[in-house]
């Protein structure tokens, strides 16, 4: 599904440049649930941004579902993001003045799906995350866990190939974190490919594979026995 070869990325900080990713080789098959771990500054967020086409790579190649991601202009990148990727952020990033349902419907709106179908679909996804009754509420009226579940519904609404989650539980207490992880595991069970950036080992253990990053290189890449989150809920 994801195929990365010899990925390099550096940032210019004034006169000196900071080499963040130093030759990453990495691939993810369909249906995997991968945790990307590492301390801060290890390059894990940069990797996720490049995977999410929010940032461009300096060197190397990136294939997503057989499509080479290269030389994208903003319009094309937006189109690919919409079609291939679903984002889940640490700070939820819901749009404040739109209701839960409208938030979920946004990616569909950008695909020019008709209003009625959009509403039906977003209700369906809200139902999957158990928030059907909250469809008309604004994000400010929801708890943190609920917000993240709306964000997950939104990420899934466009039926992307890959879900990218950047510290999805970073702003949540552990009970809510496990609920969210339970949801993510269920989505993965349904066959979706998911990448999670986290620095919490217990969250990483709930994935099927852990990739350790350190100073811009992969130091460890191992398959693990998944811990089911449902036992903590």
């Amino acid at each position, binding site marked *: 599904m994801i195929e990365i070869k010899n990925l390099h990325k550096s940032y210019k900080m004034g006169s000196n440049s900071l080499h963040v990713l130093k030759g990453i080789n990495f691939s993810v098959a369909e249906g995997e649930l991968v945790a990307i771990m590492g301390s801060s500054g290890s390059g894990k967020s940069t990797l996720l*941004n490049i995977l*999410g086409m*929010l*940032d461009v790579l300096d060197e190397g190649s990136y294939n997503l579902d057989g499509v080479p991601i290269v030389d994208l202009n*903003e*319009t094309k990148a*937006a*189109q*690919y*993001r*919409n*079609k291939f990727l679903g*984002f889940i*952020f640490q700070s939820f*990033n*819901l*749009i*404040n*003045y739109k209701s839960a349902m409208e938030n979920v419907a*946004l*990616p569909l*709106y*950008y*695909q020019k799906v008709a*209003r009625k179908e959009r509403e039906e679909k977003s209700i369906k996804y809200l139902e999957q995350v158990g928030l059907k009754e909250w469809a008309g509420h604004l994000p400010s009226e929801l708890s943190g866990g609920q917000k993240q579940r709306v964000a997950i519904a*939104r990420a899934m609404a*466009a039926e992307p190939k890959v879900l990218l989650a950047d510290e999805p539980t970073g702003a949540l207490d552990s009970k809510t974190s496990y609920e969210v992880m339970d949801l993510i595991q269920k989505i993965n069970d349904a066959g979706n490919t998911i990448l999670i950036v986290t620095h919490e080992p217990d969250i990483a253990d709930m994935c099927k594979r852990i990739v350790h990053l350190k100073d811009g290189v992969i130091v460890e890449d191992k398959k693990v026995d998944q811990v089911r989150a449902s036992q903590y809920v």
Partner: protein
Amino acid sequence: MFNKDRWKEILEVLTTNWFRTVLTAFGVFWGILILIILLAAGKGLENGVKSDFGDSATNTMFVWSRNTTKAYKGLPKGRRFRFKLKDVAAIKESFPDLKFVSPRNQLGGFGGANNVVRGLNTGAYNVYGDYPETIQQDPMLMTSGRFINYSDINEKRKIAIIGEGVKRGLYSKGETVIGSYIKIQGVNFMVVGTYKKKNTNGEEGEKEIFVPFTAFSQAFNRANNVGWMAITANDGTSITSLKEDIVALLKEKRKVHPDDKRAVGYFDLYEEYNKIESLFGALKFIAYFVGVLVLLSGIIGVSNIMLIVVKERTKEIGIRRALGENPWSIKVQILMESLFLTLISGMAGIVFGALFVYGINTLLDANGPVDMFLNPSIGIGVVIVALIILIISGLLAGFIPANSAVKVKPIDALRSE
């Protein structure tokens, strides 16, 4: 562009901070209001001044003879000469672009002695010997009877058309005017019509008596002399372009030295009218200039607020781009918000300006006419121009903010808190 979601969002954004939106809108409102009021005031002044011209044929010049100041062909300088009727024919023949050439003779004048008698009433009036065309050059409203016609001219009928002012001076109320006789310098004329002037200021214009040119010449011994002429050109030709040639022709016919600048006097009504026209052109330009400048400060206000809105929404824009919104769509969104705000406030300005002008008109109507000011108004053309200005300025106001909105990389936008 006209989808419901987009409009919903525009309204949501603009109504989140009502006070700010209204303040911003006020700048544009005020600019367009000033523009409308200035234009309406200019139009009112124009209408007022132009009503003094009334329906006069403005493409007209007047020529009269004076004393020569140069000796020519054995004739001395200081000679008094008069135009002749054949000069009129010569002008008509040489200048096919002329509509009317009306020779006129005149008795009386400002401060003249009493020259008209009817029974025991006397009065001092201007008496003109005229051709039927006069009524088209200097419009009058016939209140009874008729004006001079060519039978009168050919048969030298001694008839007179008198103004309402003359009627008031010579007749008592309710007396029959038509068919009665008045004595002008001892000669009897039958009154066949009365008139009112359309463009009169006061009654001076109605204290005039018109009689057929031929009858006038015969009665007052003018032979075939012509006192002065009113010459009107066809609509396509300006009299100003012909006047030099006409004057030159007259000089030649009357044996006046071609360089004698003072022998033939003339007044070019068209030129005067054009001067006033260009004055109002300039006024209109100033109105647009000032109005647009005031509007500009409003537009800058809109642009400023849109920049702030974009800044406030940077994160939201980042989210939307991460979710796959086309940058162009974001640009259109910002542009439409700016356009919508500008148009709504501008339209409010137009409506308010129109109401203001309406109020002024009502006041003017209620309090009677004011000198040099009449019926201030704004045409649909002005409204359309104002709307076009608004659309352009709304787009301009949104342009910079829209660009800055899409210039931010989605990743930076997401990071901003």
